[in-house]
């Protein structure tokens, strides 16, 4: 396998314009001769489907939910960044580029990130024109806020529902193309295999989730916009259905998987309350602006917080990071919470939580100010926990919420399989080892509205593609594989539910490949994952048939893939002998306990190639060069 990133040469400010000019165009009259499959209908998938449909291509768009509007982009709260500099506070394309490369801890491609920052301004224009109800000032101009510790106000938002409003904008554009006859929507359909003919992606095999019918769809190009794989941890802020199946099955058809161990953990989520827990809910990190984080000083102190005197509390972030205090970056806050819980000083029934206390802020500012700033978040907290955060401290704990890793793509968003494009969170993206707040929405829409429509045209115009039909032997072979897998799962009739395996896998991953990792733990986890996978295929119990709506069967297929992906994540984490961004290896830290990068040996993208389940994957390295932003060490002391 050759990794050709197709990075443009020349000055970075002109690179994307030049690349667009160099791309071949498809004649308007010929666009309708091409069929494109888009899997996923979130920001990346819906924007791509709408835009490609508008251009004249024939689009088939697939989602497993009952409507494209349900995709998990909808849950993003905070906002979307754009280098508009409407606030006249010193923002620029270069500054957004600089912040993103640095925030990614120098593990992303400069050219990609620069393009993302450039396109950010077009995204806002597009969304405004679509009627996205962004927050406004009284004069009617767009409002901005500062987010995630950025020094400029460049975040556009629609209350606490920015993801919802951007997704509905893309969804409405998509539905418009449905009416125009350019997009055919396939809801409640799950992609279960990729079809590769003569080395090129030519279609997919899906299962209709209502009838169970296995179907083939042929096309000239396939786009995977299927989101991240955070649910490998079982508990995450992802939706219940979010899964890795599409990208994992593409990986098994030899699409390289890049940086699988780069996962992001959000420090302020509502803690787990019991074994039945089905998901974790994120609370905006803006809460840390006024809340103080603490745990009892003594181990196992189970007194209620108001009974613990000031002198017996440990405000550990303020103690360890006097200059940043409670506002240290996400990864630092998360690791410290884990550390105090590991010392058995965690709070709540299960000891997996820390207090986020607003008592001081309420005394200082008055309850009405706190209500004005955080009222909706306090209500949400109350709804879920039954506790009133105006009276008792919130309990929070970190949770997985984004995966920076994903399928490897070149500058044109094409994977190592020609004709297979990957967009949004599903690709290994522009976020390096750590994503900045309000950047996920930006990337999903940049890919779908403004990058893919050019690069996919270039691919189609450059290729001589014979039409293929779904009666081709490769389709038949993949259909048979998919059917065998499905009936295989039903035939096991073991003694454990799918969920029990998913929970066990999630706990393993959280303990050994979560907030902090070490070689011994990762080796142990790899062994355990293999055992669990073996047990899965002997002892899982899936009832019902494959000819009906069978939610357990859907879950079973996804967990089977998570059980394989988990191993690759551990292999990647084990090989990367450094700490960077969301990847913290305990062996590699500075004397004061901070992440220690090794630019000399690890300034590369790790792209893994599948060699069979019983063989270790092979590693390909794409070196990263930094011409514009020079690597530095982060410090928050």
């Amino acid at each position: 396998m050759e990794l050709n990133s197709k990075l443009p040469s020349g000055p970075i400010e002109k690179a994307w314009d030049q690349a667009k000019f160099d791309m071949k165009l498809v004649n308007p009259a010929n666009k309708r001769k091409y069929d494109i499959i888009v899997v996923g209908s979130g920001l990346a998938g819906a924007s791509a489907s709408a835009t490609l449909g508008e251009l004249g291509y024939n689009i088939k768009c697939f989602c497993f939910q009952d409507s494209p509007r349900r995709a998990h982009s909808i849950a993003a709260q905070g906002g979307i960044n754009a280098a508009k500099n409407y606030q006249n506070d010193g923002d620029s394309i270069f500054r957004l580029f600089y912040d993103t490369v640095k925030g990614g801890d120098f593990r992303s491609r400069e050219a990609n990130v620069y393009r993302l920052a450039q396109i950010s301004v077009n995204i806002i224009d597009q969304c405004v024109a679509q009627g996205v109800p962004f927050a406004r000032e009284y004069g009617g101009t767009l409002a901005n806020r500062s987010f995630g510790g950025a020094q400029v106000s460049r975040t556009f938002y629609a209350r606490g529902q920015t993801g919802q409003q951007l997704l509905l904008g893309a969804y409405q554009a998509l539905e418009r193309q449905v009416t125009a006859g350019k997009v055919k929507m396939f809801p409640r359909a799950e992609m279960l295999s990729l079809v590769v003919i003569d080395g090129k992606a030519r279609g997919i095999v899906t299962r209709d989730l209502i009838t169970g019918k296995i179907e083939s769809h042929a096309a000239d190009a396939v786009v995977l916009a299927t989101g991240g794989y955070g649910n490998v941890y079982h508990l995450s802020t992802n939706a219940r259905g979010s899964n890795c199946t599409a990208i994992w099955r593409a990986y098994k058809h030899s699409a390289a998987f890049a940086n699988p161990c780069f996962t992001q953990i959000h420090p302020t989520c509502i803690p787990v309350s019991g074994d039945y827990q089905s998901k974790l809910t994120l609370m905006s990190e803006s809460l840390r602006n006024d809340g103080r984080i603490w745990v009892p000083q003594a181990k196992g102190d189970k007194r209620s917080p108001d009974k613990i005197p000031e002198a017996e509390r440990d405000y550990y972030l303020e103690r360890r990071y006097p200059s940043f205090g409670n506002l240290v970056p996400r990864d630092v806050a998360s690791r410290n919470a884990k550390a105090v819980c590991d010392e058995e000083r965690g709070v709540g029934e299960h000891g997996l939580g820390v207090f986020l206390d607003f008592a001081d802020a309420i005394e200082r500012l008055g309850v009405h100010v706190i209500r004005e700033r955080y009222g909706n978040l306090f209500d949400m907290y109350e709804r879920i926990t039954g506790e009133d955060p105006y009276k008792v401290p919130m309990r929070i704990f970190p949770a997985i919420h984004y995966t920076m890793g994903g399928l490897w793509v070149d500058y044109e968003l094409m994977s190592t399989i020609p004709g297979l494009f990957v967009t949004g969170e599903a690709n290994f993206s522009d976020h390096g080892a750590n994503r900045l707040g309000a950047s996920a929405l930006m990337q999903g829409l940049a890919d779908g509205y403004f990058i893919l429509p050019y690069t996919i045209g270039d691919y189609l115009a450059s290729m001589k593609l014979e039409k293929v039909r779904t009666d081709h032997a490769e389709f038949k072979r993949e259909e048979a594989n998919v059917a065998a897998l499905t009936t295989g799962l039903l035939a096991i009739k073991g003694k454990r539910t799918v969920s029990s395996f998913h929970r066990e896998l999630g706990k393993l991953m959280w303990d050994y490949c979560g907030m902090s990792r070490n070689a011994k733990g990762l080796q142990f986890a790899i062994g355990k994952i293999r055992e669990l996978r073996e047990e899965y295929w002997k002892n899982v119990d899936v009832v019902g048939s494959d000819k009906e709506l069978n939610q357990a069967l859907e879950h079973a297929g996804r967990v089977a893939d998570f059980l394989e992906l988990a191993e690759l994540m551990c292999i990647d984490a084990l090989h990367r002998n450094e700490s960077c961004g969301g990847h913290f290896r305990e062996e590699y830290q500075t004397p004061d306990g901070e992440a220690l990068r090794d630019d000399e040996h690890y300034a590369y993208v790790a792209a893994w190639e599948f060699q069979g389940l019983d063989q270790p994957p092979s590693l390909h390295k794409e070196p990263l060069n930094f011409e514009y932003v020079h690597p530095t060490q982060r410090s928050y002391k």
Partner: protein
Amino acid sequence: MRITLHVWRQKSVNQPGRMVQYEARDVNPEMSFLEMLDVVNEELTLKGEDPIAFDSDCREGICGMCGFMINGVAHGPRRSTTVCQLHMRKFKDGDVLYLEPWRARAFPVIKDLVVDRSAFDRIIAAGGFISVPAGSAPDGNVILVPKQNADLAMDAAACIGCGACVAACPNASASLFTGAKITHLGVLPQGQPERYQRVERMVAEASRELFGSCTNIGECEAVCPKEIKLEVIARMNRDFIKVSWTKRGKSGNSAAGG
């Protein structure tokens, strides 16, 4: 806690359904309602019985995928709350709960508590958009929007498309849903060129999908998890009457509206 559940079980769209009784034992008050059903389903699975099918995805009240009737109330007893955000502490030990799918001709039951809401997508496809191809937008601040309008648009745009309004309505009307989108786009300057054509097409589609008419009962507003106000229906009606009387937008030419 122990809860007795009577759940609508229906194999598929063409088969008759019936209520079946289940006992949920050891219910932890901290569980969400759907987590309680997850536990019931695990027990059913281990007994070799078919688990209860119900839709859900984000489980944080924003995707709109979940929803069913609990004792005749869409999304259950807590106001402004989707069923995924409803917690068992809201119930008492020994409670008896009846769970049924949304009931509406336009929402056929697929299985158990799962219904087909694709009619909502078709209403949006009929006109619930602003036609603006990627690349053709002017700078964001060229279009000034008074804050009041932006806030009003956002209130309406908060709709999650769950279908509770239809399920609660004695006429199974989709007016709150349709009116919410018409209001969202209709109060923004960007939405003006297609304003009347939009209302005409969306209302016609809702009626083609066999949703009923609105008779101002207000059940929809009472159960809406996002607190969409009845006002959106009045706005829809006003625009619809205007277009019906003036025949604006009849030509299908988007320039005719506004």
